[in-house]
């Protein structure tokens, strides 16, 4: 798939993944939707910069991660403390077990550092490590250490809520 020829397919294929990444970062569905939309606006505006040196997904995730991090800087949101109420509010009507687990998972992710949230969202999405390293611009060795630590941190937080 190329960015130039088939933007519609690109959108259909990656929008849900990008939205989940943004949701992992913000914990707020409306904000995540805005960020996902902005990601695709930027992808469209910068489509000439895609030279096929990386996978389309790597290129798109880079834009998404950069957009999320820019959002933190420009909107001056400090999500860590604010995520939980937002997310709980939006999902109060959802009562089944899976929804509750998903809600709790977002609450736990929201307690991680900003970049850790993005990295773990990519890991949870089964994005290969070399691809995540390329997205972040850090070495694979460094990334593996980081992921090991974040996984540990996330499961610890989840345990604190008495789950598993």
């Amino acid at each position, binding site marked *: 798939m190329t960015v130039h020829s088939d933007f519609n397919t690109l959108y259909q294929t990656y929008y849900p993944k990008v939205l989940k990444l943004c949701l992992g970062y913000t914990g707020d569905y409306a904000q995540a*939707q805005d960020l996902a939309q902005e990601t695709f606006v930027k992808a469209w505006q910068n489509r000439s910069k895609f030279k096929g040196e990386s996978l389309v997904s790597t290129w798109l995730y880079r834009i998404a991660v950069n957009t999320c991090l820019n959002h933190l800087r420009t909107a001056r949101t400090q999500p860590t403390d604010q995520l939980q109420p937002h997310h709980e509010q939006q999902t109060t009507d959802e009562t089944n077990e899976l929804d509750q687990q*998903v809600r709790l998972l977002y609450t736990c992710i929201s307690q991680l550092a900003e*970049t850790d949230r993005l990295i773990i969202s990519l890991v949870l999405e089964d994005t290969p490590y070399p691809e995540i390293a390329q997205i972040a611009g850090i070495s694979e060795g460094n990334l593996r250490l980081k992921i090991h630590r974040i996984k540990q941190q996330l499961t610890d937080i989840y345990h604190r809520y008495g789950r598993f």
Partner: protein
Amino acid sequence: MDDFDKLKQVWQQQAVPVTKPDLDLLKQSNADHQRKLERPQLFSAISLFLTSAFILWMGFFSSITFQSRLTYVALALLSLVPAIQGVISLTVYNRLRRIDVTAPVTEHLSQWEQYYAFRQKMVRINLPVYYVLLNGAFGLYFIEMLGYFPLIGQLVALSLYVAWMLFAYFVLGKRALRKENGRLMSIIDNLKTIQQQLDDNH
């Protein structure tokens, strides 16, 4: 299955509602953050170039004539200073255009950091220099202009002008610069924190 795999399963099983996008609207959208920063710089550059051209025309190509050569020097300066400032605004615009949202995260963050460091330098150096040069040129221009007024008129006009300029520079300007500098410092600190999160493993 380890604990993390269970979390992964939860993540992957979640149903994310996806609204149908309006792709045409999306492709036309021009409202991202970077563009919002770029546009004022471009408009500022255009306005400054137009101001410069107007002063140049008024001083050297219109039917208005001045007695003193000093006034022509003043008009040349009044035209040159906004033109230089226009070039600087264009430089800022180009710097913003070069920030690559498709670059790896660490590189992208470093591009923003360099941009804000440049803005900080501008706030500290460029704006005060611009202000001093522009007022110096106005001072030269006033030498002839005030000559057409009686002494009392000259004193009143000069006092009002100097008072306004001092107030604008030392009160309004300093306050605005302090605020802008604080904003830039906070952005740079924020960028450094994010970069540190990527570098750090502990």
